[in-house]
Protein backbone atom coordinates (compact mmCIF):
# COMPACT_ATOMS: atom_id res chain seq x y z
CA UNK A 1 0.00 0.00 0.00
CA UNK A 2 2.76 2.44 -0.86
CA UNK A 3 4.30 1.88 2.55
CA UNK A 4 7.13 4.29 3.19
CA UNK A 5 10.18 2.42 4.35
CA UNK A 6 13.95 2.38 3.98
CA UNK A 7 15.67 0.92 0.94
CA UNK A 8 17.31 -1.84 3.01
CA UNK A 9 14.02 -2.85 4.62
CA UNK A 10 12.16 -2.84 1.31
CA UNK A 11 14.74 -5.03 -0.45
CA UNK A 12 14.87 -7.43 2.52
CA UNK A 13 11.08 -7.72 2.48
CA UNK A 14 10.45 -7.93 -1.27
CA UNK A 15 13.46 -9.57 -2.95
CA UNK A 16 14.17 -13.24 -2.18
CA UNK A 17 16.65 -15.73 -3.57
CA UNK A 18 15.27 -17.31 -6.75
CA UNK A 19 12.82 -14.47 -7.45
CA UNK A 20 12.10 -12.93 -10.83
CA UNK A 21 13.03 -9.27 -10.44
CA UNK A 22 12.57 -6.43 -12.93
CA UNK A 23 14.49 -3.19 -12.44
CA UNK A 24 13.21 -0.89 -15.18
CA UNK A 25 13.81 2.66 -16.39
CA UNK A 26 14.42 3.46 -20.04
CA UNK A 27 17.71 5.41 -19.87
CA UNK A 28 15.91 7.72 -17.42
CA UNK A 29 15.12 6.83 -13.76
CA UNK A 30 17.06 3.55 -13.53
CA UNK A 31 16.94 2.28 -9.90
CA UNK A 32 20.69 1.81 -9.51
CA UNK A 33 20.86 2.29 -5.72
CA UNK A 34 18.27 -0.47 -5.28
CA UNK A 35 20.42 -2.78 -7.43
CA UNK A 36 23.37 -2.10 -5.15
CA UNK A 37 21.24 -2.93 -2.10
CA UNK A 38 20.34 -6.30 -3.68
CA UNK A 39 24.07 -6.97 -4.12
CA UNK A 40 24.77 -5.98 -0.50
CA UNK A 41 22.06 -8.30 0.77
CA UNK A 42 23.67 -11.15 -1.19
CA UNK A 43 20.66 -12.30 -3.20
CA UNK A 44 21.28 -15.33 -5.44
CA UNK A 45 19.64 -17.21 -8.34
CA UNK A 46 17.62 -14.20 -9.45
CA UNK A 47 15.96 -14.11 -12.84
CA UNK A 48 16.70 -10.53 -13.83
CA UNK A 49 14.28 -8.97 -16.30
CA UNK A 50 14.94 -5.69 -18.06
CA UNK A 51 14.55 -4.36 -21.60
CA UNK A 52 17.97 -2.70 -21.61
CA UNK A 53 20.30 -4.31 -19.08
CA UNK A 54 22.29 -1.29 -18.06
CA UNK A 55 25.45 -1.15 -16.00
CA UNK A 56 23.39 -1.88 -12.88
CA UNK A 57 22.64 -5.32 -14.34
CA UNK A 58 26.31 -5.72 -15.31
CA UNK A 59 27.05 -5.11 -11.62
CA UNK A 60 24.37 -7.52 -10.33
CA UNK A 61 25.54 -10.22 -12.76
CA UNK A 62 29.22 -9.66 -11.91
CA UNK A 63 28.37 -9.88 -8.21
CA UNK A 64 26.84 -13.33 -8.80
CA UNK A 65 23.20 -12.44 -8.05
CA UNK A 66 21.72 -13.67 -11.34
CA UNK A 67 20.94 -17.09 -12.78
CA UNK A 68 19.05 -15.87 -15.82
CA UNK A 69 18.62 -12.67 -17.83
CA UNK A 70 15.50 -11.80 -19.85
CA UNK A 71 16.20 -8.80 -22.08
CA UNK A 72 16.06 -7.12 -25.47
CA UNK A 73 19.23 -4.99 -25.70
CA UNK A 74 22.29 -5.57 -23.53
CA UNK A 75 24.95 -2.92 -23.90
CA UNK A 76 26.55 0.12 -22.31
CA UNK A 77 24.71 2.81 -24.33
CA UNK A 78 27.04 4.88 -26.46
CA UNK A 79 30.09 3.09 -25.03
CA UNK A 80 30.11 -0.60 -25.97
CA UNK A 81 29.57 -3.97 -24.35
CA UNK A 82 28.52 -5.04 -20.88
CA UNK A 83 31.63 -7.03 -20.03
CA UNK A 84 30.36 -8.70 -16.81
CA UNK A 85 27.28 -9.87 -18.75
CA UNK A 86 29.48 -11.25 -21.54
CA UNK A 87 31.84 -12.94 -19.10
CA UNK A 88 28.92 -14.66 -17.34
CA UNK A 89 27.11 -15.64 -20.56
CA UNK A 90 30.23 -16.85 -22.39
CA UNK A 91 32.50 -18.12 -19.59
CA UNK A 92 30.19 -18.72 -16.62
CA UNK A 93 31.96 -16.21 -14.35
CA UNK A 94 31.18 -15.86 -11.50
CA UNK A 95 28.20 -18.12 -12.20
CA UNK A 96 26.70 -19.33 -15.50
CA UNK A 97 24.03 -17.05 -16.93
CA UNK A 98 21.09 -18.32 -18.95
CA UNK A 99 19.60 -15.82 -21.41
CA UNK A 100 16.15 -15.29 -22.88
CA UNK A 101 16.30 -12.80 -25.70
CA UNK A 102 13.53 -10.62 -27.17
CA UNK A 103 13.04 -7.41 -29.12
CA UNK A 104 11.98 -4.17 -27.42
CA UNK A 105 8.49 -4.47 -28.90
CA UNK A 106 8.20 -8.01 -27.57
CA UNK A 107 9.33 -7.09 -24.06
CA UNK A 108 7.09 -4.01 -23.91
CA UNK A 109 4.11 -6.12 -24.93
CA UNK A 110 4.96 -8.84 -22.42
CA UNK A 111 4.81 -6.26 -19.62
CA UNK A 112 1.61 -4.74 -21.05
CA UNK A 113 -0.05 -8.18 -21.07
CA UNK A 114 1.13 -8.73 -17.51
CA UNK A 115 -0.33 -5.40 -16.42
CA UNK A 116 -3.60 -6.17 -18.21
CA UNK A 117 -4.02 -9.54 -16.53
CA UNK A 118 -3.84 -11.39 -19.84
CA UNK A 119 -1.82 -14.55 -20.48
CA UNK A 120 -0.16 -13.22 -23.63
CA UNK A 121 0.16 -10.28 -26.00
CA UNK A 122 -0.09 -10.13 -29.78
CA UNK A 123 2.13 -8.06 -32.01
CA UNK A 124 3.51 -7.84 -35.51
CA UNK A 125 7.06 -8.80 -34.83
CA UNK A 126 9.93 -11.28 -35.06
CA UNK A 127 8.83 -12.78 -38.40
CA UNK A 128 11.73 -13.64 -40.67
CA UNK A 129 14.31 -13.16 -37.91
CA UNK A 130 16.32 -15.85 -36.11
CA UNK A 131 14.95 -14.77 -32.72
CA UNK A 132 11.93 -17.16 -32.56
CA UNK A 133 14.29 -20.10 -33.09
CA UNK A 134 16.28 -19.09 -30.02
CA UNK A 135 13.55 -17.90 -27.68
CA UNK A 136 10.87 -20.30 -26.46
CA UNK A 137 8.63 -17.41 -25.39
CA UNK A 138 7.89 -16.34 -29.00
CA UNK A 139 5.20 -18.22 -30.95
CA UNK A 140 3.04 -17.68 -34.05
CA UNK A 141 -0.68 -17.19 -33.53
CA UNK A 142 -3.51 -17.02 -36.05
CA UNK A 143 -6.03 -14.18 -35.79
CA UNK A 144 -9.49 -15.79 -35.27
CA UNK A 145 -11.13 -13.01 -37.30
CA UNK A 146 -8.84 -12.48 -40.30
CA UNK A 147 -6.70 -15.61 -40.39
CA UNK A 148 -3.57 -13.48 -40.38
CA UNK A 149 -0.56 -15.03 -38.67
CA UNK A 150 0.90 -12.79 -35.97
CA UNK A 151 3.29 -13.27 -33.05
CA UNK A 152 2.32 -14.10 -29.47
CA UNK A 153 4.53 -13.48 -26.45
CA UNK A 154 3.59 -14.57 -22.92
CA UNK A 155 2.85 -12.08 -20.16
CA UNK A 156 5.67 -11.12 -17.84
CA UNK A 157 4.60 -11.07 -14.19
CA UNK A 158 7.76 -10.57 -12.11
CA UNK A 159 7.74 -11.30 -8.39
CA UNK A 160 8.89 -7.75 -7.83
CA UNK A 161 9.25 -4.60 -9.90
CA UNK A 162 11.70 -1.90 -8.88
CA UNK A 163 11.66 1.55 -10.48
CA UNK A 164 12.91 5.02 -9.58
CA UNK A 165 10.79 8.20 -9.71
CA UNK A 166 11.00 11.86 -8.85
CA UNK A 167 8.58 12.24 -5.96
CA UNK A 168 6.17 10.59 -3.60
CA UNK A 169 3.84 12.01 -0.98
CA UNK A 170 3.55 10.65 2.55
CA UNK A 171 0.71 8.33 1.53
CA UNK A 172 2.99 6.68 -1.02
CA UNK A 173 1.51 8.16 -4.20
CA UNK A 174 4.31 8.46 -6.76
CA UNK A 175 4.74 11.14 -9.43
CA UNK A 176 6.93 10.64 -12.51
CA UNK A 177 7.65 12.96 -15.41
CA UNK A 178 9.78 12.87 -18.53
CA UNK A 179 10.54 9.57 -20.24
CA UNK A 180 8.46 6.98 -18.38
CA UNK A 181 9.53 3.88 -20.35
CA UNK A 182 7.65 0.85 -19.01
CA UNK A 183 7.36 2.12 -15.41
CA UNK A 184 3.59 1.85 -15.26
CA UNK A 185 3.45 -1.51 -17.00
CA UNK A 186 6.13 -3.22 -14.91
CA UNK A 187 4.69 -1.99 -11.60
CA UNK A 188 1.18 -3.15 -12.52
CA UNK A 189 2.44 -6.46 -13.96
CA UNK A 190 4.41 -7.47 -10.85
CA UNK A 191 3.22 -9.19 -7.69
CA UNK A 192 4.96 -6.58 -5.54
CA UNK A 193 6.76 -3.34 -6.23
CA UNK A 194 9.30 -0.93 -4.81
CA UNK A 195 9.58 2.64 -6.01
CA UNK A 196 12.65 4.58 -4.92
CA UNK A 197 12.17 8.35 -5.15
CA UNK A 198 14.34 11.45 -5.10
CA UNK A 199 12.26 12.98 -2.34
CA UNK A 200 9.15 12.53 -0.26
CA UNK A 201 7.01 15.66 -0.05
CA UNK A 202 3.89 16.64 1.90
CA UNK A 203 1.83 17.30 -1.23
CA UNK A 204 2.48 16.35 -4.87
CA UNK A 205 2.44 19.53 -6.93
CA UNK A 206 0.22 18.88 -9.99
CA UNK A 207 2.29 18.62 -13.18
CA UNK A 208 0.50 18.37 -16.53
CA UNK A 209 1.37 15.16 -18.30
CA UNK A 210 3.01 13.59 -15.28
CA UNK A 211 2.28 9.96 -14.54
CA UNK A 212 0.94 9.27 -11.05
CA UNK A 213 1.06 5.78 -9.62
CA UNK A 214 -1.41 5.70 -6.73
CA UNK A 215 -0.02 4.42 -3.46
CA UNK A 216 -2.53 1.57 -3.32
CA UNK A 217 -0.97 0.08 -6.49
CA UNK A 218 2.55 0.03 -5.00
CA UNK A 219 3.97 -2.10 -2.18
CA UNK A 220 6.86 0.01 -0.87
CA UNK A 221 8.28 3.49 -1.41
CA UNK A 222 11.76 4.49 -0.24
CA UNK A 223 13.40 7.90 -0.35
CA UNK A 224 16.80 7.50 -2.07
CA UNK A 225 18.22 10.82 -3.29
CA UNK A 226 20.38 10.32 -6.41
CA UNK A 227 19.10 6.74 -6.48
CA UNK A 228 19.21 6.64 -10.28
CA UNK A 229 22.83 7.78 -10.64
CA UNK A 230 24.61 7.38 -13.12
CA UNK A 231 21.33 7.51 -15.06
CA UNK A 232 19.29 10.63 -14.46
CA UNK A 233 16.18 12.03 -12.88
CA UNK A 234 14.68 14.89 -14.87
CA UNK A 235 14.43 17.98 -12.73
CA UNK A 236 17.05 16.71 -10.26
CA UNK A 237 20.28 15.77 -12.06
CA UNK A 238 21.71 14.93 -15.47
CA UNK A 239 22.96 11.62 -16.80
CA UNK A 240 26.60 11.05 -15.74
CA UNK A 241 28.04 10.15 -19.12
CA UNK A 242 31.60 10.07 -17.78
CA UNK A 243 30.59 7.31 -15.37
CA UNK A 244 29.16 5.21 -18.22
CA UNK A 245 32.44 5.65 -20.11
CA UNK A 246 34.57 4.85 -17.07
CA UNK A 247 32.58 1.64 -16.44
CA UNK A 248 34.11 0.08 -19.55
CA UNK A 249 37.61 -0.19 -18.07
CA UNK A 250 36.39 -1.32 -14.63
CA UNK A 251 34.12 -4.02 -16.05
CA UNK A 252 36.57 -5.46 -18.59
CA UNK A 253 38.74 -7.02 -15.90
CA UNK A 254 37.50 -9.44 -13.21
CA UNK A 255 39.95 -8.15 -10.59
CA UNK A 256 39.22 -4.49 -11.32
CA UNK A 257 35.51 -5.24 -11.07
CA UNK A 258 35.91 -7.13 -7.79
CA UNK A 259 37.93 -4.25 -6.33
CA UNK A 260 35.26 -1.80 -7.48
CA UNK A 261 32.52 -3.94 -5.91
CA UNK A 262 34.31 -4.06 -2.54
CA UNK A 263 35.11 -0.36 -2.53
CA UNK A 264 31.86 1.09 -3.87
CA UNK A 265 29.04 -1.30 -2.96
CA UNK A 266 30.08 -3.69 -0.17
CA UNK A 267 31.96 -1.13 1.92
Amino acid sequence: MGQITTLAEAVARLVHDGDTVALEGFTHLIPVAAGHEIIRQGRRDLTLVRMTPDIVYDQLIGAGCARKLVFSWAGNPGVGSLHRFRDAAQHGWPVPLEIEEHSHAGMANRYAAGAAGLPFAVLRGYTGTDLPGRTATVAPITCPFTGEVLTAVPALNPDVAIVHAQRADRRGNVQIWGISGVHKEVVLASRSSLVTVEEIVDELEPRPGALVLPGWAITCVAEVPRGAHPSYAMGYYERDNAYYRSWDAISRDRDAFTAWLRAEVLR
Partner: protein
Amino acid sequence: MTYSPGEMMTVAAARALAPGTSCFVGIGKPSTAANLARRTHAPDLVLVYESGTIGAKPDRLPLSIGDGVLAETADAVVSVPEIFNYWLQPGRIDVGFLGAAQLDRFANINTTVIGKDYTDPTVRLPGAGGAPEIAASCREVIVIVAHSRRTFVTTVDFVTSVGFGAGPGDRERHGLRGRGPQLVVTDLGMLAPDPETCELTLTHLHPGVTLDEVRAATGWELRVAAELRTTAAPTDTELSVLRALENPTS
Protein backbone atom coordinates in the same frame (compact mmCIF):
# COMPACT_ATOMS: atom_id res chain seq x y z
CA MET B 1 37.06 22.25 -46.71
CA THR B 2 38.67 18.84 -46.34
CA TYR B 3 36.62 16.12 -44.68
CA SER B 4 36.90 12.59 -43.34
CA PRO B 5 35.21 9.46 -44.77
CA GLY B 6 33.04 9.38 -41.65
CA GLU B 7 31.87 12.95 -42.27
CA MET B 8 31.07 12.08 -45.90
CA MET B 9 28.99 9.13 -44.65
CA THR B 10 27.03 11.24 -42.17
CA VAL B 11 26.39 14.01 -44.71
CA ALA B 12 25.24 11.54 -47.37
CA ALA B 13 22.86 9.90 -44.89
CA ALA B 14 21.48 13.27 -43.78
CA ARG B 15 20.73 14.23 -47.38
CA ALA B 16 18.68 11.05 -47.79
CA LEU B 17 16.14 12.31 -45.22
CA ALA B 18 13.47 14.23 -47.08
CA PRO B 19 11.86 17.36 -45.59
CA GLY B 20 8.56 16.77 -43.85
CA THR B 21 9.07 13.09 -43.15
CA SER B 22 9.14 11.23 -39.86
CA CYS B 23 12.24 9.28 -38.93
CA PHE B 24 12.70 6.58 -36.26
CA VAL B 25 16.21 7.35 -35.05
CA GLY B 26 18.80 5.22 -33.28
CA ILE B 27 21.64 6.74 -31.28
CA GLY B 28 25.08 7.23 -32.88
CA LYS B 29 25.43 7.91 -36.61
CA PRO B 30 21.67 7.80 -37.36
CA SER B 31 21.00 10.42 -34.70
CA THR B 32 23.88 12.62 -35.89
CA ALA B 33 22.68 12.42 -39.51
CA ALA B 34 19.05 13.12 -38.59
CA ASN B 35 20.01 16.12 -36.47
CA LEU B 36 22.23 17.39 -39.31
CA ALA B 37 19.32 17.07 -41.75
CA ARG B 38 17.09 19.05 -39.40
CA ARG B 39 19.68 21.86 -39.30
CA THR B 40 20.21 21.97 -43.05
CA HIS B 41 17.66 21.01 -45.70
CA ALA B 42 14.90 19.42 -43.55
CA PRO B 43 14.05 21.68 -40.58
CA ASP B 44 10.63 20.04 -40.27
CA LEU B 45 11.96 16.47 -40.06
CA VAL B 46 10.12 14.66 -37.26
CA LEU B 47 12.58 12.82 -35.01
CA VAL B 48 11.12 9.82 -33.21
CA TYR B 49 13.21 7.96 -30.61
CA GLU B 50 12.31 4.57 -29.14
CA SER B 51 12.36 6.07 -25.63
CA GLY B 52 8.97 7.53 -26.58
CA THR B 53 9.90 11.07 -27.63
CA ILE B 54 8.03 12.18 -30.76
CA GLY B 55 9.09 15.32 -32.61
CA ALA B 56 12.20 15.97 -30.52
CA LYS B 57 14.07 19.18 -31.43
CA PRO B 58 17.31 18.88 -29.46
CA ASP B 59 19.64 21.90 -29.47
CA ARG B 60 22.63 19.54 -29.11
CA LEU B 61 23.30 15.91 -30.01
CA PRO B 62 21.59 13.61 -27.51
CA LEU B 63 24.01 11.26 -25.76
CA SER B 64 21.52 8.43 -25.51
CA ILE B 65 18.12 7.56 -26.96
CA GLY B 66 16.62 8.65 -23.65
CA ASP B 67 18.55 11.88 -23.19
CA GLY B 68 16.60 14.50 -21.22
CA VAL B 69 16.97 17.04 -24.04
CA LEU B 70 14.76 14.80 -26.21
CA ALA B 71 11.92 14.76 -23.67
CA GLU B 72 12.22 18.50 -22.99
CA THR B 73 11.90 19.43 -26.67
CA ALA B 74 9.45 16.80 -27.97
CA ASP B 75 5.90 17.37 -29.21
CA ALA B 76 4.89 14.35 -27.13
CA VAL B 77 6.48 11.91 -24.71
CA VAL B 78 4.78 8.52 -24.67
CA SER B 79 5.47 5.17 -23.01
CA VAL B 80 7.61 2.49 -24.65
CA PRO B 81 4.64 0.16 -25.34
CA GLU B 82 2.87 3.09 -26.99
CA ILE B 83 5.77 4.11 -29.24
CA PHE B 84 6.07 0.57 -30.58
CA ASN B 85 2.37 -0.37 -30.72
CA TYR B 86 0.66 2.86 -31.80
CA TRP B 87 3.34 4.68 -33.76
CA LEU B 88 5.75 2.13 -35.24
CA GLN B 89 3.63 -1.02 -35.75
CA PRO B 90 0.84 0.49 -37.91
CA GLY B 91 3.40 1.98 -40.32
CA ARG B 92 3.04 5.64 -39.34
CA ILE B 93 6.80 6.31 -39.49
CA ASP B 94 8.31 7.06 -42.90
CA VAL B 95 11.94 6.13 -42.41
CA GLY B 96 13.72 3.78 -40.02
CA PHE B 97 17.39 4.49 -39.59
CA LEU B 98 19.55 1.51 -38.56
CA GLY B 99 23.17 0.50 -38.08
CA ALA B 100 24.55 -3.05 -38.36
CA ALA B 101 27.36 -5.24 -37.08
CA GLN B 102 26.94 -7.50 -40.12
CA LEU B 103 25.01 -6.89 -43.33
CA ASP B 104 24.51 -9.32 -46.22
CA ARG B 105 23.78 -8.81 -49.92
CA PHE B 106 20.02 -8.82 -49.21
CA ALA B 107 20.48 -6.18 -46.49
CA ASN B 108 19.65 -8.54 -43.64
CA ILE B 109 21.11 -7.18 -40.42
CA ASN B 110 22.87 -8.90 -37.53
CA THR B 111 23.28 -7.15 -34.19
CA THR B 112 23.03 -10.27 -32.00
CA VAL B 113 26.08 -12.57 -32.16
CA ILE B 114 29.20 -13.00 -34.31
CA GLY B 115 29.94 -16.69 -34.89
CA LYS B 116 27.74 -19.54 -36.02
CA ASP B 117 27.04 -20.90 -32.52
CA TYR B 118 24.47 -18.74 -30.74
CA THR B 119 25.19 -20.38 -27.39
CA ASP B 120 28.98 -20.00 -27.73
CA PRO B 121 29.54 -16.93 -29.90
CA THR B 122 32.83 -15.35 -30.89
CA VAL B 123 31.36 -11.97 -29.94
CA ARG B 124 28.17 -11.34 -28.03
CA LEU B 125 26.58 -8.15 -29.41
CA PRO B 126 23.86 -6.10 -27.65
CA GLY B 127 20.97 -7.79 -29.46
CA ALA B 128 17.77 -6.71 -31.16
CA GLY B 129 16.50 -3.64 -29.32
CA GLY B 130 13.93 -1.94 -31.50
CA ALA B 131 15.54 -2.91 -34.80
CA PRO B 132 13.50 -5.97 -35.95
CA GLU B 133 10.21 -4.08 -35.83
CA ILE B 134 11.74 -0.86 -37.18
CA ALA B 135 13.01 -2.90 -40.16
CA ALA B 136 9.60 -4.54 -40.55
CA SER B 137 7.24 -1.60 -40.08
CA CYS B 138 8.76 1.69 -41.22
CA ARG B 139 7.74 2.58 -44.76
CA GLU B 140 11.39 2.28 -45.70
CA VAL B 141 14.75 1.79 -44.04
CA ILE B 142 18.13 3.49 -44.41
CA VAL B 143 21.18 1.60 -43.13
CA ILE B 144 24.31 3.50 -42.17
CA VAL B 145 27.42 1.39 -41.63
CA ALA B 146 31.20 1.55 -42.14
CA HIS B 147 32.29 -0.51 -45.14
CA SER B 148 34.53 -3.51 -44.38
CA ARG B 149 34.73 -7.24 -45.07
CA ARG B 150 34.00 -7.87 -41.40
CA THR B 151 30.65 -6.13 -41.79
CA PHE B 152 29.69 -6.80 -45.43
CA VAL B 153 29.44 -10.60 -45.30
CA THR B 154 27.99 -13.21 -47.65
CA THR B 155 25.66 -14.53 -44.95
CA VAL B 156 24.97 -12.89 -41.61
CA ASP B 157 25.61 -15.15 -38.61
CA PHE B 158 22.21 -14.26 -37.13
CA VAL B 159 19.24 -12.50 -38.74
CA THR B 160 18.26 -9.91 -36.14
CA SER B 161 16.37 -7.67 -38.58
CA VAL B 162 15.11 -8.64 -42.01
CA GLY B 163 16.13 -6.76 -45.13
CA PHE B 164 14.96 -8.79 -48.12
CA GLY B 165 15.42 -12.25 -46.57
CA ALA B 166 16.60 -14.62 -49.31
CA GLY B 167 15.37 -12.35 -52.09
CA PRO B 168 12.26 -11.15 -53.96
CA GLY B 169 8.92 -11.91 -52.30
CA ASP B 170 10.40 -12.81 -48.92
CA ARG B 171 9.23 -9.66 -47.13
CA GLU B 172 5.67 -10.30 -48.30
CA ARG B 173 5.87 -13.97 -47.27
CA HIS B 174 6.94 -12.92 -43.77
CA GLY B 175 4.12 -10.35 -43.58
CA LEU B 176 6.52 -7.40 -43.29
CA ARG B 177 4.67 -4.27 -44.33
CA GLY B 178 7.37 -1.71 -45.10
CA ARG B 179 9.37 -1.63 -48.33
CA GLY B 180 12.57 -2.58 -46.52
CA PRO B 181 16.05 -1.10 -46.88
CA GLN B 182 16.10 1.32 -49.82
CA LEU B 183 19.53 2.78 -49.17
CA VAL B 184 22.78 1.71 -47.51
CA VAL B 185 25.19 4.56 -46.81
CA THR B 186 28.82 3.70 -46.04
CA ASP B 187 32.07 5.60 -45.70
CA LEU B 188 32.98 4.51 -49.25
CA GLY B 189 29.75 4.93 -51.19
CA MET B 190 26.06 4.11 -51.37
CA LEU B 191 24.14 0.96 -52.28
CA ALA B 192 20.51 0.38 -53.20
CA PRO B 193 18.55 -2.84 -53.79
CA ASP B 194 18.15 -3.93 -57.40
CA PRO B 195 14.42 -3.58 -58.15
CA GLU B 196 14.24 -7.12 -59.60
CA THR B 197 16.66 -9.19 -57.52
CA CYS B 198 16.61 -7.13 -54.28
CA GLU B 199 20.40 -7.54 -54.15
CA LEU B 200 22.35 -4.55 -52.87
CA THR B 201 24.00 -2.79 -55.78
CA LEU B 202 26.62 -0.06 -55.61
CA THR B 203 25.12 3.14 -57.00
CA HIS B 204 27.52 5.83 -55.75
CA LEU B 205 31.19 6.13 -54.95
CA HIS B 206 32.15 8.92 -52.58
CA PRO B 207 34.70 11.37 -54.05
CA GLY B 208 38.21 9.89 -54.24
CA VAL B 209 37.08 6.31 -53.60
CA THR B 210 37.75 3.67 -56.28
CA LEU B 211 35.55 0.76 -57.26
CA ASP B 212 38.40 -1.61 -56.39
CA GLU B 213 38.49 -0.26 -52.85
CA VAL B 214 34.78 -0.93 -52.40
CA ARG B 215 35.09 -4.41 -53.89
CA ALA B 216 37.98 -5.16 -51.54
CA ALA B 217 35.86 -4.09 -48.56
CA THR B 218 32.83 -6.19 -49.58
CA GLY B 219 32.61 -9.88 -48.63
CA TRP B 220 30.54 -10.88 -51.65
CA GLU B 221 30.89 -10.34 -55.40
CA LEU B 222 29.57 -6.82 -55.53
CA ARG B 223 27.10 -5.81 -58.22
CA VAL B 224 27.53 -2.33 -59.61
CA ALA B 225 24.81 -0.15 -61.12
CA ALA B 226 25.00 0.46 -64.87
CA GLU B 227 25.44 4.13 -64.17
CA LEU B 228 27.80 4.46 -61.21
CA ARG B 229 27.69 8.02 -59.87
CA THR B 230 29.94 10.04 -57.63
CA THR B 231 28.42 11.45 -54.44
CA ALA B 232 28.57 15.23 -54.25
CA ALA B 233 31.23 16.23 -51.73
CA PRO B 234 30.02 17.79 -48.47
CA THR B 235 29.47 21.52 -48.75
CA ASP B 236 31.19 23.90 -46.37
CA THR B 237 27.82 24.56 -44.75
CA GLU B 238 27.14 20.86 -44.18
CA LEU B 239 30.59 20.36 -42.67
CA SER B 240 30.37 23.44 -40.45
CA VAL B 241 26.98 22.42 -39.10
CA LEU B 242 28.11 18.82 -38.58
CA ARG B 243 31.27 19.86 -36.74
CA ALA B 244 29.35 22.29 -34.54
CA LEU B 245 27.00 19.42 -33.68
CA GLU B 246 29.77 16.96 -32.86
CA ASN B 247 32.07 19.41 -31.07
CA PRO B 248 29.76 22.02 -29.57
CA THR B 249 32.50 23.61 -27.45
CA SER B 250 35.04 24.18 -30.21
